[in-house]
């Protein structure tokens, strides 16, 4: 029998103004999973996370974290949950080390026990040199790291990250990916919301798409990507062209004199395209994916 890190059943949220943010969603995330929860702005992702973290009161439905109902066993449920919120939520005037140590204390970890754990966590996230700095003096990237350190200091079994890499540079984003993969491999179940679909594709095994307060997709990443019929490629050419070549079975357009963009369906072979191009004297120097595959699917799903 599967153990579930998170079980949401018929969850509804109607805000005081009458907006129905969640229309009775149900969702199960298995223990050890790396799950992506995607959706456009205002779809209900943050409301869902807010309810799980008890920052938002639900209208109806149930939420269980490792079988602990947040209505009946709220303290236990919260003690095994870590949340990295979208917005910064620490005191800007405190030192980095004090913020993380205090957070440990809020989970009942005595200072003597917290101290070495905080040191390890800050070193792991590259914050140790900044430990005596006031949080407000940190750069955006370091503030995001601090948010993650805070959420992980009590070693939660379920970690929820609400757009953790929003606004951070590529290098830091990659570092965070490695870090999240590592803690997932060590057994922490992770739920991630992000607008970077490449991020979800790289990290997550399963995916849910929420739109207008309803779950429209809940499947494995592999199954979802399998549904994609067409794949776009960018071809960098050795010689410039004046117009796009016309080849049967392929849609080709000229982006600029040295770049072709083509859509290849699953039924066609990319080898055929290359031999056709060779036959008419067009040599391809290099090739890459046109755009994120998941992005295309995502747009398709929320259009339905």
């Amino acid at each position, binding site marked *: 029998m599967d153990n579930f890190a998170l079980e949401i059943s018929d969850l509804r949220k109607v805000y005081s103004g009458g907006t129905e943010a969640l229309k009775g969603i149900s969702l199960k995330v298995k223990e050890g999973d790396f799950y992506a929860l995607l959706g456009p702005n205002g779809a209900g992702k943050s409301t869902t996370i807010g309810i799980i*973290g008890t*920052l938002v009161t639900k209208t109806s439905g149930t939420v269980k974290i490792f079988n602990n109902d947040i209505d009946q066993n709220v303290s*236990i449920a919260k003690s095994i949950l870590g*949340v990295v919120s979208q917005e910064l939520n*620490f*005191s800007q005037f405190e030192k980095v080390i004090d913020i993380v140590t*205090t957070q440990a204390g*809020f989970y009942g970890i005595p200072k003597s026990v917290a101290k070495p754990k905080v040191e390890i966590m800050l070193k792991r996230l590259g914050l140790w040199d900044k430990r005596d700095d006031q949080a407000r003096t940190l750069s955006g990237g370091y503030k995001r790291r601090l948010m993650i350190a805070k959420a992980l200091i009590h070693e939660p079994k379920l970690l929820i990250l609400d757009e953790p890499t929003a606004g951070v540079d590529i290098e830091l984003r990659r570092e965070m990916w490695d870090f999240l993969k590592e803690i997932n491999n060590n057994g922490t179940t992770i739920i991630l919301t992000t607008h970077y679909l490449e991020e979800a594709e790289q990290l997550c095994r399963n995916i849910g798409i929420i739109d207008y307060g309803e779950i429209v997709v809940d499947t494995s990443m592999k199954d979802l990507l399998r549904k994609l019929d067409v794949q776009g490629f960018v071809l960098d050419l050795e010689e410039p062209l004046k117009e796009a070549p016309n080849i049967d079975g392929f849609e080709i357009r000229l982006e600029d004199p040295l770049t072709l963009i083509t859509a290849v369906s699953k039924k066609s072979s990319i080898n055929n395209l290359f031999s056709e191009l060779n036959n008419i004297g067009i040599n391809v120097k290099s090739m890459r994916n046109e755009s994120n595959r998941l992005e295309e699917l995502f747009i398709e799903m929320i259009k339905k």
Partner: protein
Amino acid sequence: MKGISNKTILITLWTLTSKEIRRFLRIWIQTLVPPAVTMSLYFVIFGSLIGPRIGEMDGFDYVQFMIPGLIMMSVITNSYANVVSSFYGVKFQKSIEELLISPMPHWVILLGFILGGVSRGVLVGIIVFCVSLIFYPEFEIANLGLTLLVLVLTAILFSLMGFINAVFADSFDDISVIPTFVLTPLIYLGGVFYSINILPELWRQVSMANPMLYVVNTFREGMLGISDVSISFSLTMISIFIFIFTSLSLYLLHKGIGIRE
């Protein structure tokens, strides 16, 4: 319902309380020095300069009569200010999420903030008392037990009021309206500087409706052994209001009013 252990609860309470105490100690120049300076000016002007011309009040030197009132005024304003600014601050910075997401029960969150407010109120009360000794070194406390009891109960009561104010506050204006337009006038008219026995009968009766009068006079009973009001009635009323405000604060936290969406 399964819960967390008592040891864990104690650690969470100590963490929040010590964080609150650290906060006001870190900004001591804004929190601990101003009451000492302001009260020194009261003692210089009303005690040393004008006081001798006023003469005695209820059988005590005027400066001696003022001391309990000024200590109470400092305790009330500082315990209130500590909780209202700190709790509104965590709401404003969203660091309240750290508390709400953690397994800390609501009563621990409330108690942590109240203990922070009481610590500042009591510490400021002690500082003002020490300042008063510069101006009246021979001051002796009539009833230490009653003095300490009223000191702590008053700090609890006004910390709770500060908490409720912060829960409902949506802007920095909202946390200054009540201290400026409600607390301060009531304190000034609550017998800090005079005995209500010197007032005409009508204003004496009106003053009896001022809750600050009971707090100030009960404290004066502890420090000087004189009061314009019944001590048992005052202590009962303070306790009843502490109970009402505690219940209301817990209800607000439970319902998430002002803090949850």
